[in-house]
């Protein structure tokens, strides 16, 4: 049972959280201006790296806040968590293998 460090509540068991997929995928400014393919990329396509991956999580059974986390998909280790609106922390010193 992994602990996920909620930026507000601190470490809690993963069952308190919901996964929200890849982080930093913004809703397009003007969907009508996109081609079908561009729109489909927004709707259906996500990265699937082996290594650090910025994801969204929600502390759904706790404070109900969404936040971002960088997780190493090989180990599940959470390398960083940061609140929505905050920039992704610089992990260059931490991850030896960036995909």
């Amino acid at each position, binding site marked *: 049972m992994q602990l996920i460090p909620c930026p*507000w509540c601190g470490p809690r068991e993963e069952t308190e959280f919901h996964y929200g997929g890849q982080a930093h995928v913004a809703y397009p400014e003007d969907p009508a201006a996109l081609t079908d393919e561009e729109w489909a990329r927004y709707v259906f396509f996500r990265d699937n790296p082996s290594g650090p991956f910025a994801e969204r999580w929600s502390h759904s*059974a*706790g*404070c109900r806040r969404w936040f971002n986390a960088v997780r190493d998909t090989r180990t599940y280790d959470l390398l960083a968590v940061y609140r929505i609106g905050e920039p992704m922390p610089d992990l260059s010193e931490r991850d030896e293998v960036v995909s």
Partner: protein
Amino acid sequence: MTADTSSRTSPLTAWADRLADLAPALTAVERPFLTQLTVRVSDPEAVVAMGEALGVAFPAAPCTFTRGGGPFGDVEVLWLGPDEFLVVARSELDLRVPVEDALRAALGPARGAVVDTSAQRTTVALSGPHVRDVLAHGCAVDLHPSAAPTGTCVQTLLARAGVIIQVVDAEADMFTVLVRSSFAEYLAAWLSDACVEYRAALS
């Protein structure tokens, strides 16, 4: 107007006797019909004003609650999120309308919300020598006094129900659990089952 009080039922009305039977292993008492309002506010001045209106400063730290007294008697303010609080008036009077009015006045033009959620959850006071043992059967959060001192307030899972756990008095082993009304009977049944062994040990 004040709503009729004689016709109210609380989620654990039918469980009162069974919960009472858990003593002395666990003292579990429903505190029904408390005035509860969910408050969303982030403007610092509005937060202060709301605290002043209730006579209790809003909690500044996550996962804590404050309590104090003022025009509405004993009031607790629970931190639920960075801009979300639960105001609980401990009075037996139905104070939903005046407290909501006071909070709205204090909020003023600032961004925020005040919602009457009094019947959304019910409140169970838990105490006794085995209270932490019983909670530990279903709660993954560390409730040891060193980790959860008086004033702690965590939203988490107890067994399979979402709850808010308040550490009312860590030394005296006093807790309050707030549970969604529809889950209350499940939680009561779970608490009763988790107490079986402690009751047997004491009998």
